[in-house]
């Protein structure tokens, strides 16, 4: 198909300037050619290139993108407007999103500060998580397909190679082979796996590596054998190329780039959490190393990788449901040991036997508790005190390999602080005490648990104390005279 000139009209859509003339599609800005009411936002039209030499993959990709765009929602994808008749003239009209691609960013702003890398990484991880929650895996994330809005949030573009678990995967085939962009493609994609959300985590890892070092971790392989390298090979540690990079950041990047998907971050929410809370990252040898992996190790992995083959992936949203971020709001005053005990039991149940879950222990204190003038009330002293008691409280919950972090939030509005934290971190379950936060007075005022339960973006478990006090032995405090309810209240979303 010839490039449509500005001013041309296609199926009622007036084409304006071309913003992207890519290998397989052109994208032009435009609007409605007649005076019908538009959707209320700027639009772009995508028209696949189909000249004699172009393969059938182009049109299949276009079909896949049209299907998936129609059902995706949220601020991390362009809004869908309309699609043309595939058998006549294929086109796709969607929202034109203002922003710069990460590619543009890489071309003009290198090297970024650590703070900027965090911002970009968190934005990408949130966007990818939102996509996975909708059962879609992108599978072709690369700097050209990530748009950064002026407000810093990320929008994902180009779903031509994506996979939606609710629809037949038109790009799958019996003779599985790699589909994707060689520099960013995940190892499991190389053997034909389509639908593992952790493939997108790998691609974010490649982009973070680029942001950190200016280089591609696996180069741009041109052959199938070259692409297979990432099934066993570790990239050069970023700190070997940029010695001033903090070890925790290398830990994050290399965890994203683990050859085995199970070793990577299990979801975008987990990745965003670590990037936003670097002080909680347990830095291992992976983060500290400044020399490449030894030949012996690579050779062993190479043998193992030789046996790697296609396996079907579970549905994306189910897979990320298995790795929840559980948040517990631990009260710090006016609380009985029995309540703290029940709260801990409830957290243990919420974590269940999910090895990939992570726990965030949060306590909200009022801003008046800290003071910049009195030493014993300085922010760091007060926070340290609360962090210590949080750690003590959570100690019995400690499981090997489980990630637990502790956070003191200062706010005058406890409920809002809990809600903001849960929303900002894609928390899956909030566990909080019912009585201690004033359930009894709920008839008179909207108490903290009621407000959180009403506005929570996720499941919330309200905990009442549920243990006979004798079990607690000597640790029962004399204040324990309440004997109200003996059940937990679970409120689904």
């Amino acid at each position, binding site marked *: 198909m010839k490039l449509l000139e500005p001013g041309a009209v296609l199926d009622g859509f007036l084409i304006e300037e071309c913003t992207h003339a890519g290998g397989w599609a052109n994208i032009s800005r435009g609007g409605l050619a007649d005076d019908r009411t538009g959707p209320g936002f700027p639009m772009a039209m995508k028209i696949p290139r189909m000249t004699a030499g172009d393969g*059938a993959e182009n049109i299949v990709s276009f079909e896949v993108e049209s*299907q998936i765009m129609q059902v995706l929602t949220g601020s991390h994808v362009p809004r869908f407007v309309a699609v043309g008749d595939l058998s006549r003239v294929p086109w796709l009209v969607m929202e034109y999103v203002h922003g710069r691609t990460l590619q543009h960013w890489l071309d003009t702003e290198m090297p970024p500060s650590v703070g900027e890398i965090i911002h970009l990484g968190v934005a990408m991880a949130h966007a990818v998580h939102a996509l996975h929650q909708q059962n879609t895996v992108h599978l072709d994330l690369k700097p050209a397909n990530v748009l950064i809005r002026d407000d810093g949030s990320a929008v994902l573009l180009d779903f031509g190679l994506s996979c939606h678990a*609710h629809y037949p*995967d038109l790009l*799958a085939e*019996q003779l599985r082979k790699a589909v994707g962009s060689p520099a960013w493609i995940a190892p499991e994609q190389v053997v034909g796996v389509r639908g593992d959300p952790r493939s997108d985590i790998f691609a974010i890892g490649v982009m973070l590596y680029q942001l950190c070092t200016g280089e591609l971790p696996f180069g741009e392989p041109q052959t199938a054998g070259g692409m297979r390298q990432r099934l066993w090979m570790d990239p050069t540690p970023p700190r070997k190329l940029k010695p001033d990079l903090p070890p925790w950041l290398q830990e994050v990047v290399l965890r994203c780039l683990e050859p085995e998907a199970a070793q990577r971050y299990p979801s975008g929410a987990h990745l965003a959490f670590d990037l936003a809370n670097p002080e909680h990252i347990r830095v291992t040898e992976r983060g500290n190393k400044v020399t490449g992996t030894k030949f012996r190790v690579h050779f062993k992995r190479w043998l193992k990788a030789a046996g790697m083959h296609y396996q079907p992936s579970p549905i994306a949203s189910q897979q990320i449901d298995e790795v929840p971020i559980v948040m517990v709001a631990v009260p710090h005053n006016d609380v009985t040991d029995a309540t703290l005990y029940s709260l801990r039991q409830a957290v243990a149940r919420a974590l269940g036997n999910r090895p990939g879950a992570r726990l965030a222990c949060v306590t909200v204190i009022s801003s008046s508790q800290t003071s910049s003038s009195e030493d014993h009330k300085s922010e760091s002293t007060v926070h340290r005190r609360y962090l210590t008691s949080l750690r003590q409280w959570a100690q019995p919950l400690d499981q090997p390999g489980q990630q637990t972090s502790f956070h003191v939030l200062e706010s005058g509005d406890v409920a809002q602080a809990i809600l903001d934290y849960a929303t900002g971190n894609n928390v899956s379950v909030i566990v909080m005490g019912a009585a201690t936060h004033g359930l009894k007075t709920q008839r008179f005022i909207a108490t903290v648990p009621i407000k959180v339960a009403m506005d929570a973006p996720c499941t919330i478990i309200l905990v009442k104390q549920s243990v006979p006090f004798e079990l607690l032995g000597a640790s029962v405090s004399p204040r324990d005279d309440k004997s109200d309810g003996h059940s937990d209240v679970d409120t689904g979303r």
Partner: protein
Amino acid sequence: MRLALMSDIHGNIQALDACLEHARQQRAERFAFLGDLVGYGADPSAVLERIMPLMADGAIVLKGNHDEMAVNPPTEVKNIGSSTATWTHSQLDPDQRAWLDALPMTVQLDKILLVHASADGPELWRYVYDERAATASLDAATRSPEVRYVFGGHVHEQSLYYRGSTSSLMKFTPQPGIAVPVPSHRQWLSTVGSVGQPRDGKPEAMYALLDTDRWQLSFHRVAYDHDAAAWAIRAAGLPDFFADRLELGR
């Protein structure tokens, strides 16, 4: 047009009524019953009383292997499938038997071929359980070049077969209630599941709804009073096994 595709009702009037009501709520405009209206279940006559007037109003009705057995029951019971045929035969009046006997094996509606089992020899009652059997059925059907879709039942499971990027078929297991685009430039084969005897561990009745204006196919699961259907089987003196399986969906 919204075409409701129902198969393998197996004399289960409770499940049939629930699916008919569900389909009408989904604005179904036409019905197609893909065979095995009777057999196993306790209400073959009631099922036919429901479907015969629908056929007079334009519904498509196909013959299945159990319908054939109910007309001409085997003289000796060879397997579990034929164990209720004689009883079913006794429940139908001569008009109903004659009506069953006259049902067609396949019907073509423009781009759509309807068949109880496989289009590759409909009278052989081949099961379309996998890609190979689906390929044989679809290949046979698409010898008529205008055919793009084959819908059938017989296997009591909901599946959609499509061509991936190579020419061989791929099997897709649909999620209930989600409209799957099935554009007509591709070839599709689907088994729509069983209304009256689900066997995938869930008791809910199955059917599918095809929108031929937008070419979207939705697979549905409908809760119905399976206790009543199971009770009717026991009350009729049929083997408990057929009642138990309705409760368990096995």
